[in-house]
């Protein structure tokens, strides 16, 4: 097993127009997209959303397979939601009777739209994380949440913690991989045995991992202090976020889609 194959943070490097958008634009666009998804209510508005999603994926050149692969873990939730909506939608035209449950036409539609909504929600957010590196994402979040500094929310510190955490995920995965290999070389077995045996087998992995994580944290803190790091006040950035024409265009488009979905949804289309 190669832990390296796990794509945490999900970033897919690329050079498409979607990759090049300002992270703030993408974050806002995703928020608008989610709002629009909840405003949509019938085939026409969903078709509009689906078109927007497919177009974005096509422009991003992220392989659709990669997005589908990410859906796997939510299959259970999808089935569960689908069934709940199918059986528990009151009123309407009855279609079939299963034991004490009645399946209605409304229920079928509702279950269908709910599942489609969740799928599109996940696909949209995946597109964000696939096309935006974690560092840019936190930069974007910090900038968008900036106004909260006025009410004493430590936005910079939170963003810094997030960046550091994200920065160390690959390092820790690599470290875990190394320690696992080293213990395997001494005959450790992580993949077989009872639950208790497996939990015990993790000890030779977790102890060194914790020790090294603490060591790294300590070293990083020292290194930051050596460079006189003291928080966000008066700090300038290497990467300046800047909106460009394409960002305004994207935002305008998504705003239009949201309004359209809202209007269509309002009229039940």
């Amino acid at each position, binding site marked *: 097993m190669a832990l390296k194959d796990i794509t945490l943070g999900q970033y897919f490097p690329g050079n498409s127009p979607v990759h090049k958008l300002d992270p703030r634009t993408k974050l806002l666009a995703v928020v608008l997209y989610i709002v629009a998804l909840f405003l949509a209510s019938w085939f026409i508005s969903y078709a509009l959303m689906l078109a927007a999603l497919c177009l974005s994926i096509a422009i991003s050149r992220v392989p659709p397979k990669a997005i589908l692969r990410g859906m796997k873990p939510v299959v259970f939730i999808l089935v569960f939601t689908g069934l709940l909506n199918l059986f528990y939608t009151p009123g309407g035209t009855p279609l079939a009777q299963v034991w004490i449950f009645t399946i209605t036409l409304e229920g079928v539609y509702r279950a269908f739209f709910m599942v489609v909504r969740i799928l599109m929600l996940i696909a949209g957010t995946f597109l964000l994380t696939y096309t935006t590196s974690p560092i840019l994402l936190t930069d974007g979040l910090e900038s968008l949440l900036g106004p909260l500094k006025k009410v004493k929310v430590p936005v910079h510190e939170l963003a810094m913690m997030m960046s550091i955490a994200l920065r160390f995920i690959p390092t820790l995965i690599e470290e875990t991989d190394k320690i696992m*290999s080293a213990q395997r*070389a*001494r005959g450790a077995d992580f993949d077989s045995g009872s639950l208790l045996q497996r939990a015990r087998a993790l000890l030779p992995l977790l102890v*060194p991992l914790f020790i090294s994580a603490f060591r790294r944290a300590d070293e990083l803190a020292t290194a930051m202090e050596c460079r006189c790091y003291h928080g966000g006040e008066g700090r300038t950035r290497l990467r300046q976020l800047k909106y460009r024409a394409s960002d305004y265009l994207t935002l305008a488009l998504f705003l239009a889609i949201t309004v359209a979905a809202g209007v269509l949804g309002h009229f039940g289309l």
Partner: protein
Amino acid sequence: MDPIIETKQLTHIYSAGTPFEHTALAGIGFHALPGEYLGIIGHTGSGKSTLIQHLNGLLKPSSGQVLLQGGDIWSDPKATRRARFQVGLVFQYPEYQLFEETVYKDISFGPKNMGLDEKETDRRVRSAAYFVGLRDDQLNQSPFELSGGQKRRVAIAGVIAMEPKVLILDEPTAGLDPEGVESILGNIRDYHQVRGATIILVSHSMEDMARTVDRLVVIDDGKIPFQGPPREVFQHGDELEGMGLGVPQLTRVFHRLKALGVDIDPSVYTLDQAKAAILAKLGKGAV
């Protein structure tokens, strides 16, 4: 003599089918003889770490074979497990793998996983500790109280305690002071001589390699461009430098002398050889 371990057309591709796809090994044919002291050199990212992790079955070949005493180590799970114990692998900075409460318990982790009884485990722990120069009273200490160099000895002992027929060490002297380097290399030599085991040393220090190994295998970009006794390999000075490896400083001096027009054998790499070559050149004969 039949090789104790060999690879045939060994290829390994990381993250196949993703944008991160990377061919680390491209059809490597590598072998080690019983009792041989072998050195593997290669630049960072050349594929040497990938190669050694195939030798004890930690990585599975994308294609090709790894044979231990003639048998494919992936033929069945038992063969793979046997390879784990017969081919001991000491990773780079092995001190970061220590986890037990005492040095003794940590060294006994390997033998216990092999399913050995108390008595045999005890014998192996003590003999491994002896090989790496740990004192008896240190066995009951916590490994985390020891110095960096001593921690590394404990980690090496943890692998030696499995008494592998092939012992692979990845940069065992990285980050140690000259005295520590000497002493660890000495411990490995002792194990080689007393046990008659095959040693495979991975390093990029040409000086360390030149002094210790019988045969050098150069890895570059997932392939083996040269292998042979250090003297032969160092004749490819320019190519080695092209790979970011370089030759020992002494060899470089002699290469330069040759380039300046002195008729001298440029393949020396130890002080004694250098002395002999210069004296011979000056017509005074060996002293």
